[in-house]
């Protein structure tokens, strides 16, 4: 039996029909990993208990557990009890988690099999995984290019068929941009939809755990397994049920807004792909209109004030006293300084310094306080855009990133260039909105039908919805996916 091109949904059927065991399925992916991981550098660790866990599940039987026997990968900043969790940093090279993240607990009870932990930019800061202390992850479509970041390992794991789905985390775009670069689906959930308990904190007012998978339906299955209110994260909430008049209601004739943005500095093929996607939605029966959000141009600069500020306080905990690396100095202060010099990589140090600056006396009002106010303006822009009673739309489409996967090293020495990767992904984070990257596919040529540009690289499309509008994203995404897979055969 060929297990190529398996999805969670298809695998579920094979498992339920007993055509394959959970152990055989896990073994298939472990073999793929063994063949490809050397070149792509996706997994920092492949768990040696994966086969055993799958075997245990085989004995238990499938029951009604939605992810029973499904092999998943986990980003290296999500805690799994007893396993190392290093956040791509030397600081936590030997740190063993003492408890399960809530998302992991939920996946365990859903029956998932964990294959290993995936590479990432250190402490989730970066857009290429080049900031990992353990080497960059390469793009499975072109090994000279990056997989995106910071969840580049999780994206590449799915794209190289090294698992059926993965968890990533998105703070400024860290799920959606690598998903786009690797040609897979990545969902940044509504802030609060998934518990952050057990996610190593980067910027707490932005961080969210989310699914990465081959199809929208698979992402939905994982999302439904991990979502929900959790007493360990007071910002988590249950998704409110849709009722008449609620902005996230699905079905009917939906309105999609095509984001107006500055097309300069964005790949021509990406600009075209957004327009062509709008045409596909129009043909599917959606009402398409152009939409302007005047303040979202401030999102990325705003993000690069607020996120480093939160980083500088969150990462103060790495002091060589409670856990992680310790480097000895002459006194306690020197211990801190030496430990943090040795444990943190360049970008992490840069962000901590930047955060310390924008929070320091004399600069706080000009930067941090101002950015908080601008964040509010951006939220209001989105509120207006989604106000259906006043000509608003149900969802907005836009590019995911200004370029396709770039060459390794191309932006590594220019932090500002790397920050600009977030211009399309940061806006949704400002307002805590759900946003999903899905691969674009077009009928014209075989490459385009496979979702690739003229250089053979994937292009993603971003769909953004109102808070708790995940259902809307899934509905729209599935329709697009279904339509473009039909045209594949045309």
């Amino acid at each position, binding site marked *: 039996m060929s297990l190529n091109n398996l999805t969670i949904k298809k695998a579920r059927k094979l498992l339920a029909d007993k055509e394959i065991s959970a152990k055989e399925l896990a073994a298939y992916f472990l073999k793929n990993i063994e063949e490809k991981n050397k070149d792509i550098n996706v997994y920092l660790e492949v768990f040696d208990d994966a086969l055993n866990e799958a075997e245990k599940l085989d004995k238990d039987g499938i029951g009604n557990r939605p992810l029973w026997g499904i092999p998943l990968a986990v980003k290296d900043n999500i805690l799994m009890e007893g396993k190392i969790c290093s956040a791509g940093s030397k600081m936590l090279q030997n740190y063993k988690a003492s408890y399960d993240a809530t998302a992991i607990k939920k996946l365990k009870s859903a029956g998932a099999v964990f294959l290993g932990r995936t590479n990432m930019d250190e402490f989730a800061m970066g857009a290429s995984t080049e900031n990992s202390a353990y080497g960059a992850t390469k793009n499975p479509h072109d090994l000279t290019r990056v997989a995106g970041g910071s969840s580049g390992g999780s994206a590449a794991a799915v794209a190289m068929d090294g698992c059926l789905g993965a968890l990533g985390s998105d703070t400024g775009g860290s799920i959606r941009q690598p998903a786009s670069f690797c040609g897979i689906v990545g969902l940044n959930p509504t802030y609060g939809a998934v518990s952050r308990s057990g996610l190593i904190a980067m910027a707490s007012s932005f961080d969210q755990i989310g699914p990465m998978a081959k199809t929208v339906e698979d992402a939905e299955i994982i999302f439904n397994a991990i979502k929900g209110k959790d007493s360990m994260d007071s910002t988590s909430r249950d998704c409110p049920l849709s009722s008449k008049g609620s902005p996230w209601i699905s079905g009917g004739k939906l309105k999609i807004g095509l984001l107006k943005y500055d097309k300069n500095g964005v790949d021509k093929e990406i600009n075209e792909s957004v327009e062509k996607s709008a045409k596909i939605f129009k043909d599917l029966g959606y009402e398409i209109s152009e939409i302007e959000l005047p303040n979202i141009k401030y999102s990325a600069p*705003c993000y690069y004030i607020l996120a480093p500020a939160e980083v500088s306080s969150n990462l103060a905990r790495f002091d060589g006293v409670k*856990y992680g690396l310790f480097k000895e100095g002459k*006194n306690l202060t020197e211990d801190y300084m030496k430990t943090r010099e040795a444990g943190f990589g360049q970008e992490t140090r840069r962000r*901590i*310094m930047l955060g310390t600056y924008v929070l320091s006396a004399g600069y706080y009002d000009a930067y941090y*306080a*101002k950015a908080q*106010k601008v964040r*509010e303006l951006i939220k209001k822009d989105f509120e207006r855009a989604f106000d259906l009673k006043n000509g608003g739309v149900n969802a907005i489409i836009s590019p995911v990133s200004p370029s396709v996967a770039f060459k390794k090293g191309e932006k590594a020495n220019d932090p*500002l260039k790397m920050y600009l990767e977030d211009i399309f992904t940061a806006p949704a984070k400002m307002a805590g909105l759900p946003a999903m990257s899905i691969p674009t596919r077009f009928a014209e040529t075989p490459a385009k039908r496979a979702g690739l540009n003229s250089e053979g690289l994937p292009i993603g499309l971003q769909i953004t919805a109102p808070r708790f509008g995940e259902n809307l994203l899934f509905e729209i995404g599935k329709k697009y996916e279904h339509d473009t897979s039909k045209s594949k055969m045309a």
Partner: protein
Amino acid sequence: MEIEKLAKLARINLSSEEKEKLQKEFEAILKYISALKEADTDDGENGFSKTETLNVMRPDENAHETGKFTEDLLEGVPFSENGYVKVKHVFE
């Protein structure tokens, strides 16, 4: 900008080469984030959303039994003694 002072505040040792590099990079980054100055925020917004940010309280009860997690947590601690985290003198 006083990189030296910031490094001290952030408790990070930096080599002189890195300080020089950061100085240059910060100039570019600060120029970029200063774009916010143009944003019109003068409509009395205090910057914090009123609808979503609220305190979540719970009764202070049902504490776990003392010492339940001590061993697990101390396993990750660089220096410990008799169930305590061991730290150098804070004041000298």
